[in-house]
């Protein structure tokens, strides 16, 4: 791909971008949020038509005027945003458009499910091909997308942040799959914001900034810091944990005996003011469910929630917010954003009461100023605060969800996978923000499937397995990933409280 140009209303998304891919290589595409990575790959997969530039496949000039054309050329893509049909089953999603048929357009459902099962078996994932997609967690839905892309047996496979919703174990499985494909000569474009992955899986790295090509380097020989500075145009200092002494700090939130069906079993813990409590666990351990139950988003069977020493009656998110608890969901599309509304409206969503008078008339000027402040503070890449959120890049969308909770200024904040899809620069910014919030006396819970992130941020680390809290470890350099993994796979037994 050379000289690719793409304009959107108000945005010059690609400026003469270029990219090349050899068979059997993993080529990482890196760049800040909104750099144009997804757009470039959508051009390659026939979803967008470029305004200029040429694409060649196997040395032949190619016009890719639609997804079908891309498929015919052997180009497959795993989209950054899930593109699944929620009402259909897993197998039906994987083979949409390529259903095994019998005469008269009749479907061969048995073969469909068997084929899906085969793919999952190759992937070593256990997902029921007959399950409706809407009943799966985001992580599992992501696995379905991957399975779908694999089923095409493409020569070129584009993976746009495939691991954003996956944890380490799942990521390892995916990497095993990628290595297998590589060995078969498949060329893979790999987009990710997780820097460690780049080293582990890719051969070459192409870096983009502001829609333009910056350079291509060898993954093995280039230090991460160099790649980062190529991405952001400057060097980044790394974030350290600095565990404060919280012995005398008052407890902000205490949860006792929380139960919900078989998903949450007798979970209890507390967070102090100024503390960052990390939550680690494997996919489906129940961390999200615990957060939602505390926040009143889901009903709970039993359990007390004590805020600042007083029992709080939380039956709805509204009660929770009133009690000073904020929850940033892991699934921004479904639970975090009104995609059809503009940036300003989304940022203001939690706090409209503050921006309106007694008659309910909004102070648009103040809202605009606030929205613009956050756009500047979080470096949200958007033409204006009136841009519809659905037109923003994934990472920028995530930043808007963060902005809306920062604006609300809750005493207790639960961040569920807050850096999902966020670039390194912004990630560091968000870490600093959380630390500043904690230093300000807020209690913070961070649920993350990235162990390095949990280790880097948390003052203490709670680990869950199959709905139970299996242990709470101290934060800081003393705790190793293996300690967490041991607890995360510990099926039974009483929770152990490690001494801090």
């Amino acid at each position: 791909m050379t000289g690719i140009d793409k304009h959107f209303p108000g945005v010059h998304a690609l400026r003469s971008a270029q990219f090349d891919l050899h068979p059997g290589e993993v080529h990482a595409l890196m760049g800040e949020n909104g750099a144009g990575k997804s757009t470039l790959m959508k051009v390659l997969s026939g979803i967008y038509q470029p305004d200029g530039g040429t694409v060649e496949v196997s040395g032949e000039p190619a016009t890719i005027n639609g997804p079908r054309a891309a498929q015919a050329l052997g180009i497959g893509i795993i989209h950054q945003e899930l593109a699944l049909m929620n009402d259909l089953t897993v197998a039906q999603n994987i083979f949409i458009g390529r259903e095994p048929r019998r005469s008269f357009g009749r479907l061969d459902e048995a073969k469909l499910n068997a084929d899906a099962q085969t793919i999952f078996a190759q992937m070593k994932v256990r997902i029921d091909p007959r399950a409706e997609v809407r009943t799966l967690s985001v992580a599992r839905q992501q696995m379905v997308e991957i399975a779908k892309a694999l089923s095409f047996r493409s020569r070129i496979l584009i993976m746009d942040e495939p691991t954003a919703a996956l944890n380490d174990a799942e990521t390892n499985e995916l990497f095993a799959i990628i290595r297998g494909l590589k060995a078969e000569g498949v060329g893979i474009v790999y987009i990710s914001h997780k820097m460690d992955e780049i080293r582990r899986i890719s051969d070459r790295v192409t870096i983009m900034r502001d829609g333009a090509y910056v350079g291509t380097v060898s993954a093995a020989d280039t230090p991460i810091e160099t790649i980062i500075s190529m991405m952001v145009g400057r060097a980044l200092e790394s974030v350290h944990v600095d565990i404060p002494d919280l012995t005398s700090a008052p407890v902000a939130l205490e949860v006792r005996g929380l139960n919900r069906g078989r998903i949450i079993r007798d979970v209890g813990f507390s967070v102090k003011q100024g503390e960052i409590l990390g939550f680690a666990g494997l996919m489906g351990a129940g961390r999200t469910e615990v957060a939602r139950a505390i926040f009143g988003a889901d009903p709970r069977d039993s359990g007390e929630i004590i805020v600042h020493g007083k029992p709080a009656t939380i039956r709805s998110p509204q009660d929770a917010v009133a009690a000073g608890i904020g929850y940033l969901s892991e699934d921004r599309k479904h639970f975090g954003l009104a995609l059809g509304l503009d940036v300003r409206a989304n940022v203001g969503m939690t706090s409209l009461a503050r921006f309106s008078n007694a008659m309910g008339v909004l102070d648009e000027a103040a809202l605009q100023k606030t929205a613009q402040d956050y756009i500047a503070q979080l470096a949200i890449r958007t033409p204006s605060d009136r841009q519809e959120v659905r037109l923003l890049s994934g990472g920028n969308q995530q930043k808007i969800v963060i902005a809306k909770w920062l604006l609300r200024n809750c005493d207790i904040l639960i961040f569920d996978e807050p850096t999902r899809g966020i670039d390194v620069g912004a990630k560091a910014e968000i870490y600093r923000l959380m630390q500043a919030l904690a230093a300000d006396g807020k209690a913070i819970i961070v649920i993350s499937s990235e162990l390095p992130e949990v280790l880097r941020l948390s003052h203490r680390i709670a680990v869950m397995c199959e709905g139970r809290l299996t242990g709470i470890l101290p934060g800081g350099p003393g705790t190793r990933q293996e300690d967490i993994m041991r607890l995360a796979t510990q099926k039974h037994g009483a929770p152990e409280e490690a001494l801090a």
Partner: protein
Amino acid sequence: MTTLPAATPARKPASGAQQKLLAFASLIALLVFFSVASPNFLQTSNMLAILQATSVNGVLAIAATLVIITGGIDLSVGTLMTFCAVMAGVILTNAGMPLPLGVLGAIAAGAVCGTISGTLVAKMKIPPFIATLGMMLILKGLSLIISGTKPIYFNDTPGFSEISTGSLIGRIIPSVPVPNGVLILFVLALVIGYVLNRTVLGRYCFALGSNEEAVRLSGVNTDAWKIAIYALAGSICGIAGLIIASRLNSAQPALGLGYELDAIAAVVIGGTSLAGGRGSILGTMIGALIMAVLLNGLRVMSVAQEWQTVVTGGIIIAAVYADMLRRRRAAS
């Protein structure tokens, strides 16, 4: 990852069949209530009358179900039915052609109109509500124009009234003279139920309603499939036109307005979501039956008509609410 627990989803929805069995409950409750309330209700003849009263609305509701599952809506089912009936009249009575041609003509007219609606929606991206509202008005006018604003009678085609009022079943089992119109409804329900669940067309119905863009990105020619679905729905309206014309032994050009709401109501009572992506023919049949039983029962009880309306409104809400409660309980 091999160490992970099996991924059977925690919030397992009640299985399809189970859910639909539950949906029967409102219908059964109504039947039991009316049987107790009026001794005249539970007679074979009245049951047949209810079934016959369901036939037209049921067939229209099946057509509407297809379109609604794709995430669309079809307001033209009622006047399209009339248009097809008028076409049959023109072919059989005005042009004096043989019966099979009239039947084919009506169904073909429905398919053509459906294709037009489908093209408006799929190719010209006109919202289904507007496209089918426009078609509803156009067809209403055309029915009047083509018929000369007069009913067309089928007196010259004696076999025509057999389509709906004759009884194939009655010839075999004389004690259950189920009219052919009802037979057609049930056969059609089985066929379209099969199409929805077992064929590519059905699969794309659900897929389009669930996430059209994702289907398109998978390289499927979504426009062509959508048009095909509207065309199928249109030809089903043609069948409804034959049933009603045969029942009234005439094509009544002024009829049909307002029938679309009844049809859509049956679909929604039957649990199909107006947002698209989920629904079933069985549910629609139950929905249509609930409406017919309700009206017949209230009439047999000689409830004053203004109260009939009030009660019908209340029961429609209650039936859907009860169904939702049951589903929610079944889910947990």
